[in-house]
């Protein structure tokens, strides 16, 4: 299956992916409603995006009491708005923090791979997000570990 592969060392923290995602998902530019989120590492010096890995376990699907989460044509777990009752169980079940709840619509929302043409990958100016046929992995683990370790060692001028 094609998945979103994250190349954290290429990310410059411009957050263009969040703009593109929110536009595709909501029709307006509103990064607060983006389902891809860029996190800072090592203080303010490194950034990396993170979104649903479309994990095989599908914790969100398992947890949903009304069967509102299904698999779409792109192979992504997707929330059926008509069925979702906004109970937020999926947001608790997801171990990756990539299920969100929208207080305006009172529904859960998540990455659905834009139905097979992810806007974030298209918008990223440095190809830090690619959409390709590969096994899904923990893209950020090693990167985060390395950057965090450097802060903990605490070189001169390291960000606090």
């Amino acid at each position, binding site marked *: 299956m094609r998945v979103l592969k994250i190349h954290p060392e290429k990310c410059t923290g411009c957050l263009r992916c969040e703009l593109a995602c929110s536009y595709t998902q909501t029709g307006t530019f509103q990064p*607060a409603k983006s389902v891809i989120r860029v996190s800072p590492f090592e203080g303010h010096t490194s950034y990396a995006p993170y979104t649903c890995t479309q994990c095989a376990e599908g914790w969100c699907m398992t947890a949903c009491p009304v069967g509102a989460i299904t698999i779409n044509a792109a192979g992504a777990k997707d929330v059926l708005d008509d069925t979702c009752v906004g109970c937020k169980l999926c947001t608790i079940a997801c171990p990756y923090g990539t299920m969100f709840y929208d207080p305006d619509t009172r529904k859960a929302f998540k990455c659905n791979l834009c139905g097979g043409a992810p806007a974030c990958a298209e918008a990223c100016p440095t190809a830090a997000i690619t959409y390709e046929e590969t096994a899904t992995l923990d893209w950020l683990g090693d990167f985060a570990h390395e950057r965090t370790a450097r802060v903990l060692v605490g070189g001169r001028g390291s960000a606090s």
Partner: protein
Amino acid sequence: MTTATLSAKAATKKTTRGARELPGGYAGQLLRVDLTKKKCWAEPWGPDAMRELLGGVGLGAMILYRETAARGGKGNVAWDHPDNRLILATGPMAGLPAWGSSGLTVVTIGAGTNGPTSTQANGFFGTNLKYSGYDAIVLQGQAKDWVYLYIDDDVVELRDARDLLGQDTWATQDTLGTKLGLSGHMLSVYSIGPAGESLVRFAAIQGDYGHVASKNGCGAVMGKKKLKAVAIVRGGKALRAADPRGLVQAADDIGFDLRTDPSAKSLYEYGTLPGVVNLSRLGALPIKNYTTNVSPVDMSRWEAPKLREGFDHRGHQCSACGMHHCHMSVIRQGEHKGAIVDEPEYEGWSGAGWAIGAMSDIDGVAWLNTELDKACLDVNEFGWICGWVMECQEKGYIGEKQLGFRLGWGDIKGAARLIQMISHRQGFGDVLAEGVKRAAEALGGEAKKCAIYTEKGAAPRGHDHRARWDEMLDTCTSGTGTLESGVPVHPAEVGQPTRINTFDGEAVAKFVAGIRGRRHFEDSLGMCIFTTRTRLENLARALNAATGWDVTVPETVRFGRRTAAILRAVSLRCGLTPDLERPSTRYGSTPVDGPAKGQAVGAQWESMVNTWYREVGYDRKTGKPLPATLKALGLDWLAKELWGKKA
């Protein structure tokens, strides 16, 4: 500490009361803050004003004109008067997907010239502000105790900042981030360091680790208002575009131009780093306070790829930007090994390096440049003042006792000591904190003749303008305290030649006047002047897709010239008359060596200025834009106000 909270309800009521639908791209409100009264309120503004003023400097210039006239008489309020406005404005493109679209334009009466200022920075200011629901912040009054402005959507508060006092700008952002529990771009902070607190006349406003609105002492204005910082949480609101697909398409076309057009490609790849070597070939790299234009060191070390690869570096881009411009660097070796610094711009390498004779210690210059950002000093003016002190010491005009220590060419440690003395106004630092012009005038004699400044009180940008007459003319005649026409971008698009003889005063003056207007337009969009290095046609298309307007290329230039005329009116009201539009002795001198050796700008100065006045349609004697010029720009009201019955 008193707080004022804007309720969402109240703000919404105001904006929707009988208003027509807002153009896309706009948040629709200005955030007004009265520091004296400790009040914050949202002021809606409508489609007509948006089309007329756009945002950024267009909006700021009109607010200055309308709100900073001296009460009950002629003239303008001074930079340190409570009625001075500090306008932190973004524009319609901010928060949208065009590259570098988080622009901040600071407009105020600056401490350097005591006249109008327009100076830019980026980072995430514009994005965070727009998603909070505001297009600009307009500050007035003076707080009794130090405060910072906190913005989180509809929660707007003036909070106690006494515990932040004395902290540098990076520490201030660290502290606020920790205190508010927000990291990365979730919080944009623009603040002043010790130099702003001490009202240094070339204090800047620094934000988001390395972005600086640096010109004309805007940081001193913030300091006078006792506003330590503005902290904006990434807002939760939405921005609409009239034609989202058209906007993305225009943004992609702009990106294509930036990546591939020969005039922008090197900026795309290396930001402003190539400037060091390129300008040295023209004699426009300022070396040792304009005393020479011949580099004594191997320039291959200063090539852009080597400057970048000499450090561990990571991209640190502004909102939605694809340029390989802003970077964070980690110093690999030497005294400051491990220090994280903002990769210096060209002007950092020149101001914290070449102008002060530091031409070998690249790591030291990179470190010093960030120290300046942290203290919030303008790197350009620091270069002129530090280089001047070094030359004066060498020549015996400033004694070791007077300064307190020996400061020789290229002494990074000594320069860092000077930063502290200026930032805290210690000893001779108090004289230097007044800026290069006032310090030179205080010393007088031979020392004064060595100093680089304009008679208006501004300092030039980080070049040797004796080899760039266009920028010297622009700096001296500008209504913003810095370049106004700016660097030419696709001049043929506005009917100007692509190449001129840069030492032909007549051609230079016509060119500077001819390209005028574009820069004001760019600085009103909420974008960066590096990501607007594309054809105006593309910018207009992006603006129209965002807003739903039908702005044409001629209209963009007309808008810019209209804004320039309004700033000129404010400038004259501040007492910045045409007799002050000239360079200091050293600034206007003739290079003694290097590529521009013997090119005497002084010999052509008068005729150059005369030509410029004729071309822009301003009155040479009074400096006022002529009635016909104003009317052609649609400024009949200003013609009446400036000329009375003669209009």
